[in-house]
C-alpha cells in the first residue's frame, strides 16, 4: 500500500494548510508521500516564484531582437548574421553560505546547463558577488571559497569568466550573494525549447548517477531564512563535477544541434520532479517516470528521494524510439550514462512508477502552473517612512588632505582592483576575448563575423537600500553606460533579484519598487528583460540584506573593431566630462569610507538624459573620435580619473606581467592627468561625490570640436589633459591633489594584502 500523507506531513515540508487543501482538491483526496514531496518542492518559493510572479509581469520582455523572453531556460537575443545569444543569471546564495567552494561551483554548473539546454554553446560567464566586510575572517573565508569554486568549475569547462563584481557591506554578513551569469552562442534557427512531445517517445536521463545530494535543497535551503538549524542542513551539500559537465556540454550540443533529440531539460532545483513536470506541462502531455530505473549512487534510496534529488550534472531528454540507438552511441562516446527512465503519454499526468506500483500521479499542468500566488501587502520600511532628504553637507566636514582621501577610496575593497579574483579565472579560453576583466565591460568577438558582444554586471545595493526604485533604475542605467563606454549597443537584460523575506511587507515593498525601477529603465533604454532569477529569504536572524537587484546586460557590435576601453592612451589628449558636474555624498562610497555613514537621498537617474548621453558616447566611439571612455561610478570623478590613469600601464586592456611592479609593462611610463574643476564650495564632493549619467572621455585635441558637436546640449566640461606620471587636480590656482600614478596603482592593487 502506498503511504498517504496528512496535513502534519505537509506542514513539516513547509506547505500551508491552504496549500495542502488545494493539493487534496487537485489529487481528489490525500496525496501520497511522493506526491506531497513533489508538491512541496514545486510550490516552494524557489521553484514556483509564488511571491514574485505577479510583480515580474511589469517587465518589458519583447522587442524586435528578442527571440525568446522569460519562461524558458534562458532568454535569447538576435545579435545579427544569423547568430543569437542565450543568457541567464542564477543565484546560489544559500548553498554558498553553507559551503562556499562547492556552492559557488555548482551555481556555475547550473547556469551553464540552462544555456546549453537551449542548444547554445556557453561562451562567457560572469559572477556578481556580495560579502560582509573584508575585515571579518569568516567573510574572507567565504570570498576565498566562492572565487575558488567559480574558478574550479568554469575553468574546467573551458568557458571564459570575463567579468563580474564584488562588493562588501555589513548587510551581507550572514547572507553572501553568489549570482552566476552565463551566455552562449547559437544559430538563431537552432533554438531548442524544453517541451516534451510525441506520445510514445522515450524519456532519457543523461549524465551522473543520482545520490542524496541536496535533497530538499530547493525548499529547505532556498526558501527559508537561516537560523540555528543551519548546521543540521549541511548533509544535503552538493558537490560539483565539472569534468562530467564538460562531457555533457559536448554530448548534448551534438544531440541538440544535429536534432537527435526532440527536446532537453536540465535537472536543477527539485531535480527530476521539476524537469519532468515542466516539460510535460509545456507540451500538454503526460510523462511516465520509472523511478526504479534511475541509476543510483546510493542503493537504498526511496522513490521520493530519487524524484527530488538535486544531484548535479544530469539532463533529461525526449527521444524518438528510432533515434535511441544514436543517442546512446553519442553518450557512450563521451562515457556518459544514458538511461531510458520513462515515456511520453497522452494522460497529461506526471506518473511515478516504483517496481510496478504507481506511487504518484499528478496532473502535470496543475502542478507546474497552479502553484499558489502570494502578494504580500507592501509597507514602506521604517527607515524610509519620512521621505528621505539629501543630507546636509555641513554635517560632513571636508578632509584636509584630498590626496589621502583619494588613496583611501582607491584602497577601499569596493573600489580596489579585483585582479586577485579574476586572475583565478580563465578569461581567454575559446579565443574570442577582446577585452579582458578589469574595465567597464567585457568584449568578445563572434568568430567568422566582424561582430562582437559585450557584457556588464551592475548593482549598487547601498543605493537600492536607500531607495530601491532609484537604485534599481540606476543599476540598469549603469550597466548600459558601461557597455556604451565600450562602444557596444545595449540590447537586453537578465536580472537576479536578491531580497530578504518576502512575507514581510517592507521587503515586499523594496521588491516592488526595484522591479518598477528596472522596468522603467529597461523601457527607456530599449533593453527588454529576457530572463532572470529571484532569490528571496536572504536574511539571517531577522537581518535582511540590502535589496540587490543585479542587472546583467548584453551589448552588441556590428564591428567589434571599434571597441574602446577606459585607459588613457597618449599625452596631450584632452579630458572631457560628459554629464552633470555635481556629485553627491548621499549613499556614496566616500560617505561610507571616509565618514562611516550610509544615509541620504540617492540621486535619481534622468533617463532621457541618460539615453542621449549613451548614444553620443557610442557615436563618438563609432566615429573613432575617442581614445578612452570610462563611467564615473563608486568614488566619483577622481576615482574614474585615477582608474583611467592606472589602466594606462596596460595598453589595450592588457595587464602587467608582474602586478606588484609599479611599472607599466610596455610604454615604460604611466600616464596621468592634469585637470581643473570649476570653483565650488566643496571640491571634495566634486571629486568624490557620486551621480549617474557621467562619463570621462579623452580625445586627441584635434577631435575635441567634433566630440563637442556630437554631445550637442549635453553637459560638457573640458577638464584638462593627459600628462605623464601623476594625477593632479586643481581648482583655480589651488592644487587639490597631486599623486604619482605608480602610488595610486600600488593602493589600487592592494586587496591581496588584506586577504592574507
Amino acid at each position, binding site marked *: 500500500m502506498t503511504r498517504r500523507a496528512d496535513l502534519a506531513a505537509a506542514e513539516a515540508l513547509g506547505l500551508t494548510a491552504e496549500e495542502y487543501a488545494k493539493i487534496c482538491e487537485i489529487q481528489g483526496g490525500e496525496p501520497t508521500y511522493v506526491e506531497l514531496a513533489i508538491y512541496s518542492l514545486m510550490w516552494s518559493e524557489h521553484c514556483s516564484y509564488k511571491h514574485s510572479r505577479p510583480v515580474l509581469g511589469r517587465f518589458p520582455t519583447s522587442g524586435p531582437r528578442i527571440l525568446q523572453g522569460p519562461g524558458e531556460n534562458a532568454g535569447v537575443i538576435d545579435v545579427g548574421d544569423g547568430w543569437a545569444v542565450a543568457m541567464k543569471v542564477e543565484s546560489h546564495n544559500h548553498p554558498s553560505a553553507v559551503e562556499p567552494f562547492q556552492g559557488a561551483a555548482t551555481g556555475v554548473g547550473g547556469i551553464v546547463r540552462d544555456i546549453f539546454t537551449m542548444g547554445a554553446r556557453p561562451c562567457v560567464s560572469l559572477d556578481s558577488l556580495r560579502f560582509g566586510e573584508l575585515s571579518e575572517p569568516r567573510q574572507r573565508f567565504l570570498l576565498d571559497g566562492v572565487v*575558488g569554486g567559480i574558478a574550479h568549475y568554469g575553468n574546467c569547462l573551458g568557458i571564459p569568466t570575463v567579468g563580474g563584481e564584488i562588493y562588501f557591506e555589513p548587510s551581507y554578513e550572514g547572507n553572501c550573494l553568489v549570482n552566476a551569469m552565463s551566455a552562449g552562442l547559437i544559430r538563431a534557427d537552432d533554438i531548442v525549447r524544453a517541451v516534451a512531445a510525441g506520445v510514445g517517445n522515450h524519456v532519457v536521463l543523461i549524465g551522473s548517477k543520482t545520490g542524496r545530494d541536496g535533497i530538499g535543497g530547493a525548499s529547505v535551503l532556498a526558501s527559508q531564512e537561516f537560523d540555528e538549524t543551519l548546521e543540521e542542513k549541511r548533509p544535503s551539500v552538493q558537490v560539483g563535477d565539472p569534468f562530467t559537465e564538460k562531457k555533457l556540454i559536448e554530448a548534448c550540443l551534438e544531440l541538440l544541434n544535429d536534432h537527435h533529440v526532440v527536446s532537453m531539460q536540465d535537472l536543477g532545483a527539485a531535480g527530476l520532479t521539476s524537469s519532468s513536470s515542466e516539460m510535460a506541462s509545456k507540451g500538454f502531455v503526460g510523462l511516465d517516470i520509472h523511478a526504479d530505473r534511475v541509476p543510483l549512487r546510493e542503493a537504498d534510496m526511496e522513490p521520493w528521494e530519487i524524484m527530488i534529488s538535486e544531484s548535479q550534472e544530469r539532463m533529461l531528454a525526449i527521444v524518438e524510439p528510432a533515434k535511441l540507438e544514436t543517442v546512446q552511441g553519442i553518450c557512450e562516446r563521451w*562515457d556518459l550514462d544514458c538511461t531510458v527512465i520513462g515515456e511520453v503519454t497522452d494522460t497529461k499526468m506526471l506518473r511515478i512508477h516504483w517496481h510496478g506500483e504507481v506511487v504518484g500521479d499528478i496532473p502535470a499542468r496543475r502542478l507546474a502552473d497552479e502553484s499558489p500566488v502570494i502578494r504580500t501587502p507592501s509597507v514602506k520600511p521604517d527607515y524610509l517612512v519620512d521621505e528621505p532628504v539629501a543630507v546636509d553637507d555641513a554635517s560632513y566636514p571636508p578632509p584636509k588632505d584630498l590626496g589621502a582621501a583619494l588613496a583611501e577610496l582607491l584602497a577601499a575593497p569596493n573600489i580596489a582592483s579585483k585582479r586577485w579574483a579574476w*586572475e583565478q*579565472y*580563465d578569461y*581567454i579560453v575559446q579565443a*574570442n576575448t577582446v577585452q579582458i576583466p578589469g574595465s567597464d565591460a567585457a568584449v568578445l568577438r563572434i568568430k567568422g563575423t566582424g561582430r562582437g558582444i559585450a557584457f556588464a554586471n551592475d548593482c549598487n545595493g547601498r543605493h537600492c537600500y536607500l531607495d530601491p526604485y532609484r537604485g534599481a533604475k540606476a543599476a540598469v542605467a549603469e550597466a548600459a553606460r558601461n557597455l556604451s563606454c565600450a562602444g557596444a549597443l545595449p540590447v537586453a537584460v537578465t536580472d537576479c533579484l536578491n531580497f530578504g523575506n518576502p512575507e514581510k511587507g517592507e521587503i515586499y515593498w523594496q521588491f516592488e519598487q526595484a522591479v518598477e525601477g528596472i522596468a522603467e529603465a529597461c523601457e527607456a533604454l530599449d533593453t527588454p528583460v529576457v530572463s532572470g532569477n529571484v532569490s528571496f529569504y536572504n536574511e539571517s536572524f531577522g537581518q535582511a540584506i540590502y535589496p540587490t537587484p543585479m542587472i546583467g546586460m548584453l551589448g552588441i557590435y556590428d564591428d567589434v*573593431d571599434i571597441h574602446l576601453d577606459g585607459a588613457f592612451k597618449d599625452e596631450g589628449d584632452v579630458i572631457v566630462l560628459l554629464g552633470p558636474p555635481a556629485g553627491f555624498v548621499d549613499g556614496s562610497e566616500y560617505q561610507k569610507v571616509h565618514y562611516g555613514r550610509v544615509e541620504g537621498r540617492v540621486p535619481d537617474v534622468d533617463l532621457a538624459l541618460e539615453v542621449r548621453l549613451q548614444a553620443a558616447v557610442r557615436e563618438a566611439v563609432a566615429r573613432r573620435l575617442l581614445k578612452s571612455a570610462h563611467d564615473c561610478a563608486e568614488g566619483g570623478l577622481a576615482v574614474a580619473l585615477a582608474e583611467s590613469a592606472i589602466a594606462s600601464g596596460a595598453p589595450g586592456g592588457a595587464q602587467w606581467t608582474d602586478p606588484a611592479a609599479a611599472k607599466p609593462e610596455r610604454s615604460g611610463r604611466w600616464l596621468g592627468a592634469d585637470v581643473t574643476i570649476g570653483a565650488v564650495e566643496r571640491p571634495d564632493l566634486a571629486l568624490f561625490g557620486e551621480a549617474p549619467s557621467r562619463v570621462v572621455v579623452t580625445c586627441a585635441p584635434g577631435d575635441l570640436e567634433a566630440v563637442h558637436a556630437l554631445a550637442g546640449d549635453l553637459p560638457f566640461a573640458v577638464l584638462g589633459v593627459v600628462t605623464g606620471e601623476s594625477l593632479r587636480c586643481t581648482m583655480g590656482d589651488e592644487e587639490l591633489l597631486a599623486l604619482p600614478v605608480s602610488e595610486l596603482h600600488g593602493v589600487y592593487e592592494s586587496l591581496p594584502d588584506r586577504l592574507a
Partner: protein
Amino acid sequence: MSSASPQPVRFGVVVFPGSNCDADAHHAISTFPGATVDYLWHKDTDLKGVQAVVLPGGFSYGDYLRCGAIARFSPIMQAVKDFAADGGLVMGICNGFQTLTEAGLLPGALIRNTGLKFVCRYVNLRVENAETPFTRACDEGDVLRIVVKHNEGNYTVDPETLAAMKANGQVVLRYCDADGVPGDAANPNGAVEHIAGICNETRNVFGMMPHPENSVEAALAGGADGRRLFQSIIDTLTVAEVAS
C-alpha cells in the same frame, strides 16, 4: 629550395575528455596558410598521417588524481609514443605538457602552483634555445608575451636531470620580465629555475605551460606572439619536406 609552393603541414590536435583548448589549438593552426589541422580522438589508435601532434590544454579527466595521469593511458597515446620515437614532432601545451611528463616523454613533473591558486595572467617568456623545431622562428633571448592559465604549472625535476637538460639545451623557455631577465617576480607558479617550456633529448618532443594558441591574433587580448612557435613547426616540416 624549390619555388613550387610547398604542401601545407598536417597537424593533429588530440581530444581527450576534458580537453578544453583543443578547439583553440585547432583554430590557431587554421590561421596559418601553410598548415592544415585535424582532430585526433583519444580512443583512436592511429594518427591519420599527421606530421605534427599537439596535445592541447584543458582538464583531461577533470585533472582528477593528477593532471594528465589518466590521459596518458588513452589508446592514442601509444601511437603518440611511437610517433615520437620515430622523430615525429609532438607539442604539449599546459595539460598536454603535463600528460607528456606523466607518459615519460618529457622529464620531470608539474606540481601545484606555489600560490595554490589557478593563475591566468600574461607572462613574458625568454627563448633560451632557438635551435629547436618549436622555436627556430625566434632568436635566443627573444621575449614572447603569452598567457598562462593553470593550477599545476610548477615544473620540478631532480637536480641531476636538470643539469643534464641544461647541458643539452633542453630548457627552451623561461619566465622573465619585460627586459628578458628571468626572476621570481616574473614566475607565476614557482617552477624551478623559472622553467616554462622544455624539450626531450632529441628535441622533437616539446612541452610548455603557457598557451601560444591563445596568442595568434593581434585583434584579441592575447596578442600574436604565439604565432612564432607554430611557425617554427611549419618551417621545420616544410623545409624537411622540400629537402626530401
